[in-house]
């Protein structure tokens, strides 16, 4: 554990973020509304500096600021992930009327990018939090800024509705989570995650411990949009500007999982080196949540005709697959979750980017608008096909490898419960094909409506899509560097300074 002042050195990435954020706000003020290009440049420079700072200060792990925040390779992996996510969104929003209406003078570009940087800061803190208070604060930071971002199109009814729903739901969920945290504090006597498991264990089979943990899980479940805390997700994803949706579907979800895993590892009873003991109630709770999330997400997605809503339910389903990995409680499970999050970033942002690009070219967001897109915008359709097949989990795309690792982790754990979990998982994968194929059917199998013209994408979007598609396919064939990087990142789990001490020692 490091002293406050000494901690600052290891806190460089977040400090850089804060500095960049302040710089952006000042520039925005001084220039009376910074242009998109300027704001984006500052944002990207900041994110690059964050990555550099993380790399430079990596290697010395420990608790910072009195064990409030941890600096370990696990959090570093997520920091890279968040920086990448924010960078992609920063680039995308440059050419998206949805987010920053560049046809208007008061386009609020500076504020948009400042919010993105702020959420990145919150996500970094979420991944590193080892204290209940810190967890709540970082989660709220991300949530509050997300509410504002989803309502960014001030004059649009749907956007405002999305923001309001998000705020109300998030407020209630956070409140419940805070109450659960206060109960945990009462049981443990301190807010640090390190001592929680012994404290809850010492409280015996006390129902209070169970209730408290369930309440805290409500908050985390809301953040990752797990069933039954997912109701906000479709409406918010549909109403928010699409770049914001793309961002929300990956960044805060990954941050939620990072925090969830740390919390669960620190708190769960009967968790040993080989994962949960057989018959563990906690594992059953997580498993049931995973099953519900996968199933509800996939089944309701079948009925959707708005592409953003369809992708929203699909992201709920993917949260279910990820929860499956968390349920194992093994190192392989967490490794699979992290691997899948990295791949999920690429394919989900890619899919939303296609929606953004098509919307920017003048079409709408429903399946009817996507009719015969295979012939009107061949590149976009091919790329969308790659992302959709990857999301389904079909080789040779990266999504298959991610799902493979998840199922492998679940089956490696073994035992009847996990086998059933795996079976539900694969059946859901097959079900998900139906609604992904509906998009493909609209794009390729249907005839164009009379007078349908060719659709040209903006060069920025076309290039970004190309890069993401190539990464998706390449990762499907050669993923060894990524998985070994994650394996090394998890090597720091045994460090007693971090909250998840000695789980797998």
């Amino acid at each position, binding site marked *: 554990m490091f002293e406050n002042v000494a901690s600052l050195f290891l806190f460089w990435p977040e400090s850089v973020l804060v500095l960049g954020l302040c710089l952006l706000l000042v520039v925005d003020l001084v220039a009376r509304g910074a242009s998109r290009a300027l704001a984006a440049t500052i944002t990207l420079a900041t994110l690059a500096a964050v990555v550099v700072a993380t790399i430079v200060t990596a290697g010395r792990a420990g608790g910072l600021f009195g064990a409030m925040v941890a600096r370990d390779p696990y959090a570093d992996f997520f920091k890279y992930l968040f920086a990448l996510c924010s960078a992609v969104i920063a680039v995308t929003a440059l050419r998206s009327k949805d987010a920053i209406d560049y046809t208007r003078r008061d386009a609020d570009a500076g504020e948009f990018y400042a919010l993105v940087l702020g959420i990145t800061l919150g996500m970094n803190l979420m991944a590193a939090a080892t204290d209940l208070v810190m967890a709540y604060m970082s989660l709220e930071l991300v949530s509050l800024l997300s509410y504002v971002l989803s309502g960014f199109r001030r004059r649009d009814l749907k956007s405002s509705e999305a923001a309001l729903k998000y705020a109300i739901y998030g407020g209630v969920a956070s409140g419940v989570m805070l109450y659960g945290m206060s109960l945990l504090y009462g049981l443990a006597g301190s807010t640090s995650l390190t001592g929680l498991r012994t404290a809850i264990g010492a409280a015996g089979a006390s129902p209070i411990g169970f209730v408290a943990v369930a309440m805290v899980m409500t908050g985390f479940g809301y953040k990752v949009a797990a069933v039954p805390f997912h109701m906000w997700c479709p409406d918010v994803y549909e109403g928010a500007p699409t770049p914001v949706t793309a961002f929300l579907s990956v960044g805060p979800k990954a941050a939620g999982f990072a925090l969830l895993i740390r919390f669960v590892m620190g708190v769960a009873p009967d968790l040993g080196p080989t994962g949960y003991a057989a018959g563990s109630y906690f594992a059953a709770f997580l498993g049931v949540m995973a099953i519900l999330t996968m199933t509800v997400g996939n089944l309701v997605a079948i009925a959707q005709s708005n592409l953003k809503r369809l992708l929203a339910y699909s992201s709920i389903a993917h949260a279910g697959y990820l929860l499956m990995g968390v349920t194992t409680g093994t190192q392989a499970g967490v490794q699979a979750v992290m691997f899948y999050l990295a791949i999920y970033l690429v394919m989900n942002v890619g899919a939303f980017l296609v929606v953004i690009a098509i919307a920017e070219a003048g079409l709408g967001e429903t399946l009817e608008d996507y009719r015969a897109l295979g012939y009107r915008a061949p590149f976009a359709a091919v790329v969308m096909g790659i992302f959709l*097949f990857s999301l*389904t989990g*079909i*080789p*040779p795309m990266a999504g*298959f490898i991610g799902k*493979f690792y998840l*199922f*492998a982790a679940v*089956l*490696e754990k*073994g035992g*009847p419960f996990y*086998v*059933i979990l*795996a*079976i539900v998982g*694969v*059946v859901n*994968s*097959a079900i998900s*094909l*139906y609604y992904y*194929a509906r998009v*493909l*059917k609209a794009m*390729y*199998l*249907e005839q164009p409506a009379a007078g349908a013209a060719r659709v040209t994408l903006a060069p920025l979007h076309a290039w970004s899509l190309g890069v993401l598609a190539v990464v998706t396919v390449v990762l499907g064939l050669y*993923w*060894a560097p990524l*998985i*070994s990087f994650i*394996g090394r990142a998890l090597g720091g789990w045994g460090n007693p300074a971090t909250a998840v001490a000695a789980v797998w020692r």
Partner: protein
Amino acid sequence: MVFAPLIGILILLLVPKGYEHLIKWIALAAAAVPAVIALYLYVHYDRAAHGLQFVQHFVWVRGFNIEFFFGADGVSVSMLILTALVSLVAVGASWGINKHLKGYFAMFLLLEIGMMGVFAALDFFLFYVFWEVMLLPMYFLIGIWGGPRKEYAAIKFFLYTLAGSVLMLLAIIALYYTSVPTLLADGTPAQHTFDLLKLSAPQNVAAFGGAPLLLGVKFTHLIWIALFIGFAIKIPMFPFHTWLPDAHVEAPTAISVILAGVLLKMGTYGIMRINFPILPEATRWAATAMAVFGVINILYGAFCAMAQKDLKKLVAYSSVSHMGYCLLGMAAFTQTGMTGAMFQMFNHGTITSMLFILVGVIYDRAHTRGVDEFGGLASKMPVYAAFFSFAFMASLGLPGLSGFISEILVFLGAFPIFKVMVVLSATGVIITAGYHLWTIQRIHLGQFDDQKWGAGAHYPLVGNDINTREILTLVPLAVIVLILGFYPNPMLQLIETGMGDLVRAVQEGAGAATLALLP
């Protein structure tokens, strides 16, 4: 051999849109390369050798001990040759496609890569990857270039096969984690393995047999069922066969040829390659059930075919019926039975390809496939009638053509074990002959409807006989069927050694227990 069509795809993508003819010829060349290699394979394959030949083996993903392991042995070499041949013929049959040619042939070549890879792969993960890679192009090929209900047929095929495949994935992972430590291709030790050959080794078989119960059922039995369902959907076995009539009818001619000629064989190939050697004890446990389903396939398929009014659907159901013979032969575990099953797979591939090409010929001209709508075609389209009769005779198992040999081998091999079922299947032969001859009679004999199909009609059939290109696609298959009917040794020699090894693996692996005999 597996990746040669990839170069074809890359060349195709470079060709600009207008040069339709060039595209077709490039695709033909790309499909011809594996065919030439298949010829080389046929000539240089050592008939008497046990084990693998033409092996390529190196490590791909170290973290999960996945290897890049290709090879050919008695089980797969005939299938590789069949795939190359049928693909080449199918490209010839695709000459009539006129929209989005580049996409069509790109998808087609991708499909060929997948098919070759499935038959050549000897690493379970690699096998699965190629298995899934096939689904993607099939969806597009059926869905874009198909008939009136193509979207329905395409998604039904995709969903059905994917559902089976994901069960297979779980079984693959479960087998992996239960396997014993071994060495990888470059000598490094591995905790578990995906290598199909090592998985069938006695140590692993023993490990699987001794694995703890899974969901209350014996591990091997559960895995066997999971794998079997995945393969059974492909065969297609009753009751997982309902995707077949739709997919076959709606697919364009060449795709139906590939679907029936090659894809159906993958189900039985998978059972032979994976279920039999790795889980021999469970295979013997399920043998009777397999035989029963085989007989149901034969009889149910035959009766359904008899009732069809659409010629293509009739041929599709006859495929269901013929694959039932394979199942029956496989369930017997005798050298004769298994050889018959494998040979039937090859023969059915060649014969059914011919049948679908012939259906395509008449559909291209008449734009209808109703069996009752024709009549007396033999008088006006004699060459077509000749080929048609030849193919249908081969399909019903006329002695002198290859179908007879394989069916007789299956019966001979299965009779000692499953007396009643073989008798039932033999009656299936009668029904098969029934609907085949009846179809020939309805279409080719009788009165020619001059008004409907005469010289002045909307779709004249007079003077519109089968043309040279179509004859060229039929002749290689017909010649093979004819030769193998009189002299099956060329193919049987390829198969026998491998089948002998397989039979021994099943019988030894399961111990000395005798099979249950039905009364």
